[in-house]
């Protein structure tokens, strides 16, 4: 991730954040993120997507799989983005598709962040043989080509569905986060306050949970956002390749059905453009939020 220099005095922000941190954790965070203009836009965009996903049945004019309309119609007043080759309303599918993307992003993001934390923190804190073994698996996870692995796993699975996609994405996507967290804990574990905690007789689990994890919260958040983003993209890609459940309404399935249903040749640009654009906007919101979180977690990116 990259950042353009912020005009705001970030050092002062950090101090206010630390002050706020003392009373309660969330608001201090929120203040820093909210004061970053790009990050604020990103958070508002994501909030809009969440509202759309939650209120999908209210916003969408028709059911996403209701196929009683004329097939392959262009945009009209009744169907803002036209209809699919099976006579479904494209706009309604677009609204419901937000649900799938957000659920996959959230669930697969949380799961792979948890795996990454468990593996990365254990490896980095314990070092020695455990580290060698776990690092080997991390490196293996990094070099194995992810999409072919996902495709093969999805190809063998007996049932197609969203749960499977989430599992496949989680299994293949945790390694990068684990490597970053391992590197971070290696720099943290020799700090004085950790040594102090050790001398005070704290258990390893307690040190990791109460001394180390709070100091890498921003890194964990960045890791989660990256994992969620990767999961959203991967779901769209797999669904587009036809490896998802065709009954799940997602932007990837929409693109799959648009390219199979002849949207390219009949000139139904709205059917083709809308799902991709929605996906791009969702990814943009994450990227914008990352600008704020990056500046929070990496002071090097903020300097001069």
């Amino acid at each position, binding site marked *: *991730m*990259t950042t*353009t*220099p912020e005009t705001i005095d970030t050092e002062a922000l950090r101090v206010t954040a630390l002050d706020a941190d003392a009373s309660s954790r969330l608001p201090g965070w929120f203040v820093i993120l909210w004061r970053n203009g790009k990050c604020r836009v990103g958070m508002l965009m994501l909030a809009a997507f969440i509202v759309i996903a939650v209120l999908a049945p209210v916003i969408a004019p028709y059911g996403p799989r209701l196929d009683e309309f004329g097939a392959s119609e262009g945009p009209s007043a009744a169907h803002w983005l036209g209809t699919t080759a099976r006579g479904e309303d494209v706009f309604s599918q677009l609204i419901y598709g937000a649900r799938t993307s957000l659920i996959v992003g959230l669930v697969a993001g949380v799961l792979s962040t948890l795996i990454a934390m468990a593996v990365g923190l254990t490896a980095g804190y314990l070092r020695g043989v455990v580290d060698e073994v776990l690092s*080997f698996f991390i*490196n*293996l996870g*990094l*070099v*194995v*080509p*992810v*999409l*072919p*692995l996902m*495709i*093969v*796993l*999805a*190809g*063998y*699975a*007996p049932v197609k569905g969203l749960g499977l996609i989430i599992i496949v994405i989680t299994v293949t996507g945790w390694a990068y986060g684990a490597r970053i967290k391992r*590197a971070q804990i*290696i720099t943290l574990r020799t700090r004085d306050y950790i040594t102090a905690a050790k001398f005070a007789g704290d258990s390893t689990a307690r040190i990791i949970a109460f001394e180390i994890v709070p100091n890498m919260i921003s890194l964990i958040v960045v890791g989660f956002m990256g994992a969620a983003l990767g999961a959203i*993209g991967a779901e*769209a*890609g797999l669904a*587009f*390749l*036809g*490896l998802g459940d065709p009954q799940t309404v997602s932007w990837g399935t929409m*693109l799959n059905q*648009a*390219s199979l249903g002849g949207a*390219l*040749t009949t*000139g139904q*640009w709205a059917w*083709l*453009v809308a*799902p*991709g654009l929605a*996906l*791009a906007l969702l*990814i*943009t919101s994450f*990227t914008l939020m990352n600008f704020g979180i990056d500046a929070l977690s990496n002071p*090097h*990116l903020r300097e001069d």
Partner: protein
Amino acid sequence: MLYFVRRAGFFLATLWAAVTLNFLIPRLQPGDPAQAMLNRLQGETTAVNPAQLEAIRKLLGTPDGNLLSQYWDYLGAICTGHFGVSYSYFPYTVTAMISSALPWTLILVGVTQMLSFAIGTLLGAWAAYRRNSRVDSVITLGSTFVGTLPFFWLALLLIFVFAITLNWFPDGGGYGGGSSPSWTWLFVSDAFQHSVLPAVALLITGPIGWIIGMRNNMVQTLGEDYARLARAKGLPRRRIALTYGARIAILPNVTGFAIALGSLLGGTVLVETIFNYPGLGRLLLEAVSNKDYPLMQALFLFTTIGVLTANFLADVTYGFLDPRVRRAEAV
């Protein structure tokens, strides 16, 4: 020297892990894997011919033997290059299918990967050289924005605009109907025409990682003490940027080159499917949708071995380029 030994050890260990993974994946499903495959094939094609049965036996070993002896048979088959017969392209062996698809992917991926690397590294270095100027923000913000666009969607739009609406390029395939692969000028130029859109689709998003990586690295190296000293000595800016900044900043990108190969191979599955391009990626997807397990397994194994080898070579190159990694073996 220790560095190279360790890298070679890692390479061999990952190779073994990939081979084993390939062995375990089909056996993760509950029940007897061979029977499960047969059942599913029966559902698909109503009758299973003896050749398919034979192929499944080859792939899975004797289903009644224990896991260890199956594993042993499997390793033996791989070491002697027996990957079995493809179900969907029946008389052909898996190896024949792969070797006919391999050149297409190698050329497409090789050329676009190198171009992406060159373009991305140059733009990233330029952005770092002109840090905080308009050039910098155009390059970084531009690439961040383009990076948010789903890449298979861009490919679809490319077909929509340039192949179907404008009719400048063919809308898919590796070469025109009627011609067959040969080293004649006519065929090569035809194949080139067919590969322009897939290559462009890969090149739009390809350089982004390099741009951002190179810019961030170089901004950091330009802030190091030796760069400061060079400035204090009054060396020309350009020389500082090239020999003090870029030369060192490019190093992490060398390792990145191999890692990117893995994701690029993933990207080719999408691109080759969209453009109906006769490479490994499309073959993999075809194998998956036809439930052609031997082909699928061999393809996954080949891709993984390719990426692992590329990684190993990158590590070795890195060791030669940067003496620091050879000496410091700590982390």
